[in-house]
């Protein structure tokens, strides 16, 4: 009997499969398709202090084996998430959910996390530090160890729930940033966020997306994700949640061997709304094929 359960920051997951933020809304719409309690958990839509529409459209572009999005954190704001979205989720999801939080200043992050901290439904925070720091010249918090650590300390101060810092892959040295977050009190690292990409429409001779560039995700980025998960998992002593192009049970096994304790599935949900369900169902057969009895045992299996 295949053992799928893993433990993430002290909370047990029935399996390591987590729909990634921004590909699963606040869950209840997917609950119309299948019982979302079969998931390990899911990371809800990136939530900010204030409501946001995000970037102008078009904000999606097709790529070989992937896509670019420049949605720009459209969300109803933390108050509405608490008052409207989480109660809706409660009717169809009995597990702890992962709260994905974004901000444009250190105070933004702390504000949103402090508000959400009172919600019993929330098991973990996943703090997205890929956003531009409006007080720091617009560079992403995630591109400097100092800025990432500052965000980590600020959210650490306002919650006792486990905090995962979600890192941007668009950096020279992912390990130094992960270590800085660990030193600042993070309970885990999740990575990779999207690669910065761009496509140009040959007919209009303009960028496909209105914002010019956007976040590139999908199977195309999987080898970069595996590499960074491996590097970070072997450099920190806190769990790593791996993501980036995962689309199959075999991809999940590869991520876990590289060092992931749990695995998020993003772009695949947008092509197949049943992607996570299928991966969970296919995991036992894939484990059997490769002689794996327990997923916990293969985490960081590659030295």
């Amino acid at each position, binding site marked *: 009997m295949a053992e799928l359960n893993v433990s993430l920051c002290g909370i047990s997951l029935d399996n390591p499969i987590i729909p990634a933020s*921004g590909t699963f809304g606040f869950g209840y719409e997917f609950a119309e398709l299948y019982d979302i309690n079969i998931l390990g958990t899911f990371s809800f*839509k990136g939530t900010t202090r204030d409501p946001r529409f995000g970037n102008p459209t078009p904000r*999606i572009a*097709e790529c070989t084996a992937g896509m670019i999005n420049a949605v720009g954190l459209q969300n109803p704001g933390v108050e509405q998430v608490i008052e409207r979205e989480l109660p809706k989720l409660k009717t169809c999801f009995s597990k702890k959910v992962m709260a994905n939080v974004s901000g444009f200043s250190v105070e933004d992050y702390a504000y949103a996390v402090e508000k959400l901290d009172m919600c019993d439904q929330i098991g973990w925070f996943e703090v997205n530090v890929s956003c531009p720091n409006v007080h720091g010249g617009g560079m992403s918090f995630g591109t400097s160890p100092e800025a990432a650590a500052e965000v980590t300390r600020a959210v650490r101060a306002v919650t006792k729930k486990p905090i995962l810092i979600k890192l941007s892959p668009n950096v020279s040295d992912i390990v130094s940033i992960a270590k800085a977050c660990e030193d600042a009190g993070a309970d885990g690292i999740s990575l990779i966020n999207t690669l910065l990409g761009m496509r140009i429409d040959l007919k209009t001779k303009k960028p*496909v997306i209105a914002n010019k560039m956007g976040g590139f995700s999908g199977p195309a980025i999987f080898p970069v994700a595996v590499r960074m998960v491996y590097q970070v998992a072997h450099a920190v002593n806190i769990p790593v949640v791996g993501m980036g192009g995962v689309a199959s049970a075999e991809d999940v096994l590869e991520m876990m061997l590289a060092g992931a304790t749990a695995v998020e599935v993003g772009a695949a949900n*947008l092509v197949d709304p049943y992607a996570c369900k299928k991966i969970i169902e296919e995991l036992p057969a894939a484990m059997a094929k490769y002689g794996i009895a327990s997923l916990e045992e293969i985490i960081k299996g590659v030295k």
Partner: protein
Amino acid sequence: MQQSLFQITENTPLTETVWRMRLTGNTSAITVPGQFVNLKIGGLFLRRPISVCDCVGDTLTLVYKVVGHGTEKMKGMQAGEMLDILTGLGNGYDLTPVREHALLLGGGVGVPPLYMLAKRLIAEGKRVSVILGFNTKAEVFYEEEFRALGAACVTVATADGSYGVRGFVTDAMAGIDYDYFFTCGPEPMLRAVYRATATEGQFSFEERMGCGFGACMGCSCKTVTGYKRICKEGPVLKKEEILWQN
């Protein structure tokens, strides 16, 4: 929403760039005119949304224009091939506001969804007038099909005057005593219709989509009643909801 496999039964050109594909499969999720389906096409990552032209029993009819890599690949598909399709996407048109006489205005590849709409309205005993707009005579399609449905009046407008009324669909509206309208087409046409119509009505919008079923927020737009996802709370918006972005 329903995910299922459809088999292509027909794939033929209507004009040089507009093709019709017929498929059979589980159409149970397609409930109202104006919805769309999302096709998984081999070699492409994102699905491709195509509006439903008609749906009878287990037969789905799609009329699509060849404009990019996705529709290029569709054009090359043969009867017998299977396609993974998400059906029943989008809100579709709300037929209830029509009292007696509905005006349908379609432009180019915005024409197909009006076909199933006209059929339903006529089945409900409404009077239906249709104006179809194209660039030029060679691009005209489905005029006869709308007539065959029993529409009260089918007018074609061509921008270059090579067929029917010279001009845009809004140049062919005079004298039609509709009490409600429905429209689908390129945004400049929708804006013209918005200005040219006096009654209430519904507009079907296009936007570049990620998922097509509400998950990615790729296709959001601002409306009078808040942010809406074109793929989920749309593609049909009521006239009074629309907030045009300059």
